[in-house]
């Protein structure tokens, strides 16, 4: 299927990219939430069972997933605040700049989490 030139152009716009990232990060968080709640719920059986669960998750693959989730949470927050600001404060924005700030904020949160996890582990 051949996309019309105007459609391809609009898909390369920063606002479109931000909308897709916002949706995908929201989807990732929605899938993760029940598992997160179940994990925290293990504390009901006592601190020991919660500790055992946390020990199981203490491996590089889970840590990498956690970095992804923190980044997803941060990007969903930033893109969401951008939408609320546009809709309720009627601000005219420079889309490319604000979207870049949203992504930079998310990346910084992910990297800060990774750094802090390394500090916490050492």
């Amino acid at each position, binding site marked *: 299927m051949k996309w019309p030139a105007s459609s391809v152009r609009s898909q390369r716009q920063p606002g479109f990219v931000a909308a897709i990232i916002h*949706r995908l990060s*929201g*989807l990732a*968080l*929605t899938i993760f*939430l*029940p598992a*997160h*709640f*179940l*994990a*925290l*719920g*293990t*504390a*009901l059986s*006592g*601190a020991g069972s*919660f*500790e055992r*669960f*946390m020990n199981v998750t203490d491996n590089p693959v889970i840590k990498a997933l956690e970095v992804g989730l*923190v980044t997803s*949470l*941060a990007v*969903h*927050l930033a893109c*969401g*605040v951008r*939408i*609320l600001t546009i*809709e*309720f404060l009627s601000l005219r924005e420079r889309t490319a700049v604000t979207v870049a700030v949203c992504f930079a904020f998310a990346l910084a*949160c992910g990297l*800060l*989490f990774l750094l*802090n*996890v390394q*500090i*916490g*582990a050492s």
Partner: protein
Amino acid sequence: MNPSLFVAQRITAFVLAFAVTIHLATILYAAQRGLTAGHILQRTHGNVAFFALYVIFVIAASIHAPIGLRAILREWLGWWGRRVDVSLVAFAAVLLTLGLRAAFAVFVA
């Protein structure tokens, strides 16, 4: 999107903007000390402020996430109708139940 769902989505987004900011800051701070069960429970056990925050967080997320998922299912997969809506209400109830249970668990543990 249905107007009442749109309003619910935006109100919960506003609540979540504050709750997620606090949660994210807590995660980043807590990771520095090591993400162990002991450290997490030390912070949450008997802490009424954290418990209240997470109850509000869970209620808002249980409304916000299914509405967002509904838009994705409708626009990307073409899934819509009563069955989808009933499934999403059930999903919201599961999120709410598990979330409140989790908030209670780390409060009393």
